[in-house]
């Protein structure tokens, strides 16, 4: 039995409310995807700017700012006037000298200053084997073919690749 004074049934009222909700969601969704796109672009821009910034957690070691900077720069790539340097590349063989160095920069300098040095390979501090970390191998031209996609190594050649 229905009350004669009721203008809208309960079902009508629910449909109406549902319609409002759906419409609102569409509008909100549109704005939301626009906002997300803007945020993503901003984050990508930030990431591009931040790519060379090395962040170190406070690990408790009492080091000076200079030492922290040196620590952060140990594996940093740099250009050379006489060597063509490639990241993530290992050059096996041809070693005539090996030494443990404190940075990639020092390894590059060693090779630059040695006329015999036609190529070098440096093992990054991220190398899984502690005995290899920060080793610098100075090489003749007689190396084996380069091994690419090895991010723990950096290599360079004097006469081009």
């Amino acid at each position, binding site marked *: 039995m229905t009350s004669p004074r009721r203008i809208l049934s309960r079902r009508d009222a629910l449909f109406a409310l549902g319609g409002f909700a759906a419409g609102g969601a569409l509008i909100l969704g549109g704005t939301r995807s626009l906002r997300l796109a803007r945020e993503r672009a901003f984050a990508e821009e930030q990431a591009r700017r931040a790519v060379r910034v090395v962040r170190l957690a406070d690990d408790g070691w009492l080091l000076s700012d200079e030492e922290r900077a040196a620590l952060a720069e140990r594996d940093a790539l740099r250009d050379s006037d006489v060597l063509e340097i490639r990241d993530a590349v290992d050059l096996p063989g041809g070693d005539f000298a090996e030494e443990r160095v404190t940075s990639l920069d020092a390894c590059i300098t060693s090779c630059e200053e040695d006329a015999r040095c036609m190529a070098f390979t440096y093992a990054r501090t991220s190398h899984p084997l*502690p005995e290899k970390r920060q080793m610098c191998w100075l090489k003749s031209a007689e190396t084996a073919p380069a091994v690419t996609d090895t991010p723990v190594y950096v290599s360079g050649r004097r006469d081009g690749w």
Partner: protein
Amino acid sequence: MFVPLPEVNFDRYDILIAGSGLAAVSVARRAQSRGKRVLMIEAGRADYDATVQAALADIRGRGHYDGQHWPLHWARALGGTSLLWQGWVAPLLERNLAGWPISRAELEPYLEMAATDLGRPPEILTWAAPFLDGFEHRPISLGTPLNLTFDTPEIYAQVDGIDTVLEGAVARLNPREDRRGLTSLSVATLEGAARDVPLRTGQSVVLAAGGMGNAQILLSSEDGTGAAVGNEHDQVGRYLMEHPHLYNCGRVVLPPELRVPAAPESFGEHAVALSPDDTLHAALGGLDLSIELLPARPDDEDLTEGYVLSRIGEGAQVFDLTVRSEMAPDPANRVTVTDGRDPVGLRRLRTSCIVGGDAFRAVDHALEALGRAIAAAGPGRLRIVNGAIYRGLAGGGHTMGTTRMGTDPVTSVVDADCRVHGYENLFVAGSSVFATGGYANPTLNLMALAHRLGDHLGGAA
């Protein structure tokens, strides 16, 4: 020799001692050497018994050191907590006695006696060598611990004039009406049978029942008509202290030429440990600490350590650091009695012991100072392992301060002679009388104080 409780003629002894550990034995032997007859009254059995232990060391606790911690370092058996002792020995330094009514010089001959008892050479009391700016090498003596047992011949069985009764607990002290002394004490068995022991003129009672036990006996000596014995100023149980232990809370890498000066051969087995010099000690707020250097292997996972090592090259020395430190005496850190009694009728204990920010800060500042001193001396560097300090706090099992020594009865329980303020025939031996803890392992020092008390009781009367 051992005397069964029902056969004890208490009247024939000059000194009745509650307990049978290293404090009790030190008082007993010193007083005996001065012609006194001594009875040690041990609540536990001849051998360690887990049931007795659980029944007689039942504590509820809150804070950094809780109701599980204290009973682990309070053995209820013949030999007392000596049964659990690891054998670490270090003397309290002059500066550690700043808040005490006695000086290191007064304690010196007794420290020598205690060192002799423990089989340690006299060098362990005095040797130190400066190392870096602000620090000294103060080694901690290690060696075979003196764990007293039924078979420790020269102590329990064979000394004429020293007797021991087992399975009898000093469960209550009964004060004279004027509270200038005790009239009697009650000795109870694990079955709860109590025997009243009237005290004659010239008889003294010494509490040497452990840092918890001494406070427990006093706080249980209360009949509802007034304060518990010795607690007239609500001081018994307060100033509860431990030595905050921070294991592996730091790491150092030193160049080969930076060597901690070696202790002489005659020092014997030891842990290499650095302490602040007097200037740094004052700067740390008068809280003491000892930084143990444990040889370690390079950590291949730590790239920063790898950086420090690479700058030093061959011969780098790597150490883990463990700190033993001091917490300031705080009246709010305390043991109190709560509802319930143990089988001998002593009140159940409740503790609250929280290490203050000043203690943590002193450790942090000391490690920073050491880091600066190492860096100033060359390419060596130090790492502070923050989490090991603030989330890794442990203790040494050192229960100190519950019947604190001082000149003022309003802020202490015993006087410079270890006599309970006001009571002519009641004394306390053990680390519960420590006014401050320094960083030193308590055993040697509580034995020295006990020897001194034994001398006092032997000469007095």
